[in-house]
């Protein structure tokens, strides 16, 4: 009986040392429920972090697009200042109009930014270009996409392009302003050029404000990603502490179990030697 018990303990020590697991089955430890909970929590934190990281990348792309639009509007405004000057004639303004049209096209291309077939500035209508490729009319909606910064804690990860670009709720239609600027240049209408200049300058401030919103969202997403990765790592370490065997302890336990088994077998063998059968 003692030998059988010693053998069982030895087998358990071998299993623990070879697998590196201190807990495999629910009955191995009173922490089984905790391990299950940690496993689910680690998956949760990892997914939140991944989504936040990807959202941050998308917001980076949106920021790049808006920066490009700001640059375009700034160039257009500079051109407007120039062309509003009486030293330029109709021919000069006609050439400038071609430049303004190119600026409109560049801004449109930037605003129809996409990642993996999903348009980023259309609100929740992300399957079609948010700005019509021909007219520049806004085709998206006023929806704002959200993700989780933590379990049950939503944060916004998209900017309202209908406001920042299309001028909804009292703003300036940026693409419309560029179009009107080009038309004013083509018509050699200095007064209209000056009016366009005002719109362009308002547009620059409007888009810059949009960029700051994007920047703020990006910071939130990055913070959410960082925090969730830390939670994921801490959860992984806690789970490992509960399930993994300490190799030094496991090796010591194995050595002790081997000694105990050896001693039990020696005693058992000795007891068979102590018999009158060999002496009579």
């Amino acid at each position: 009986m003692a030998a059988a018990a010693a053998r069982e303990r030895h087998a358990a020590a071998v299993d623990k040392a070879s697998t590196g697991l201190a807990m495999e089955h629910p009955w191995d430890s009173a922490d089984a429920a905790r391990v299950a909970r940690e496993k689910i929590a680690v998956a949760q934190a990892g997914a939140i972090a991944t989504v936040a990281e990807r959202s941050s990348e998308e917001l980076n792309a949106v920021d790049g697009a808006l920066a490009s639009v700001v640059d375009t509007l700034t160039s257009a405004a500079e051109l407007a200042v120039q062309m509003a000057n009486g030293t330029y004639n109709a021919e000069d303004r006609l050439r400038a109009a071609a430049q303004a049209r190119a600026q409109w096209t560049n801004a449109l291309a930037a605003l129809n930014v996409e990642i993996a077939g999903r348009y980023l500035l259309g609100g929740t209508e992300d399957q079609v270009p948010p700005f019509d490729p021909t007219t520049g009319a806004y085709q998206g909606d006023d929806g704002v996409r959200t993700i989780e910064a933590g379990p049950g804690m939503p944060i916004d990860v998209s900017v309202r392009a209908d406001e920042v670009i299309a001028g909804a709720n009292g703003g300036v239609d940026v693409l419309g302003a560029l179009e009107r600027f080009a038309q004013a240049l083509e018509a050699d209408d200095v007064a209209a050029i000056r009016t366009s200049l005002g719109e362009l300058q308002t547009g620059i401030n409007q888009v810059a404000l949009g960029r700051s919103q994007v920047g703020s969202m990006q910071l939130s997403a990055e913070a959410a990603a960082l925090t969730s990765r830390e939670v994921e790592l801490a959860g992984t370490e806690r789970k490992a502490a509960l399930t993994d065997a300490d190799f030094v302890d496991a090796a010591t336990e194995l050595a002790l179990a081997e000694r105990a088994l050896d001693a039990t077998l020696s005693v058992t063998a000795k007891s068979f030697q102590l018999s009158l059968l060999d002496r009579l």
Partner: protein
Amino acid sequence: MSLFATLGTAGRALGVMRVAHATASHNVENASSQGYSRQRVELHAAQPASFLGGSFLGTGVHLGSVTAVRDRFLDEQVPAAMAASSFSAAASQTFTALNTLDPDDQFGLPASMGNFFAAVRHLSLAPADGGYRRAAVESAESMARALNRSSQEVVAARSAADQELQAQARDATRLAERVASLNAEVRRARGAGAEPNDRVDARRLAAEELSALTGARLSEQDGDLTVQLGATALVVGDRAASFSTSADPANGGHLALTVQSSGGGTTTLGDGEVGGRIGGLLHGRDSGLGAVEARLDELAFDFANSVNAAHQAGIALDGSSGRDLFVVGAQAGAAGRIAVTQEIVDDPTLLGTSATGAPGDNGGVMALLATESSALASGDVPAGALSTLIGDFGAAARSALNEADAAAATLSHVSGLRDAASGVSIDEELVELTKVQRNFEAVSKVLQTTDQMLNELLSLR
């Protein structure tokens, strides 16, 4: 006393020595026989028959009896210890047959639940993306399959317990019949004036095995060994009970144990009404695994209904809504039945991810995610309900294992005490054989000497 009388006395003594030798030899040969109690020859001085010169003269040795060395106290302790050990061993074995609730298993329930909500979370980033939709549906299928697997393993473990129960019921019937048959043999042998020690040992061994199977109590009445399980007589005299099993519709078709007592009455025994290995099987099957099966069904049912309620409000890419994500049916058997709605498996665009109808709106996905932290009908969130189930099962299994260890240690101790009291010591028997041998030699000398004296007398002229 005459020389011829002395010859007769010596001859009888040689016969007694042969009986003593045979008894010691029998002990040595049965040193390893299970249930054997060593036997001792009781020798007495024979009644003096002659009165000569004012003194009674002895008439040699008389064989009293051959008795088995038994300790009645320990004989009563061992069956109870065997029953307790068998009960807890069987119960713990049914628990530890289950691997489906291993908390860190990469394909287990916690991993599947975590992956399901992770995939839904990824979907929140791009609800219209075909790849994310397919991944979310597959993770839901994995969750359903994990529940199916868990349920199947529990059902299989309970069915395995049923099969063993059938076999143990047959063994119990056989053992009861053997004890009854041996009761009759012992009574006949005693009626003829002899004490059938080996038959008594065999009867006790069979009765102890029956007790280990059923937890029955043993008692001796009028020389018969009576075996009683609660109010049900398993063996009375030469009459034995019989065990049978039949499917119990009230217990999902699992086997119920019925005993027809030696008196003729029929009783159905459930968990808690029978001990020993059979009791352990019933306890493990019903109170242990049965509880796990019921809680898995409850978890699957509540989880599916919680997710479905959120999903029904979600709008698919084609503008439709009102679909269930999971098909689950009634609560009983839910874990074995749960599956993702086939329509959605075939076409992930039917996953209800939007709250407004716009493809990029993830309101439906966020509603699905909210179920992760919403209490189920049982009162706990899904992760909490699952981890509590795993923790409770682990605690029950660990308790059963600890009880099995403790009961085995008690049995080992009590059996050791009984073996020390009733078992055969080779050294003792060798000493006894040597004593008998020398005694035989001495009596032979008496015969020889008496014979020489007779020769002297007969040669007188």
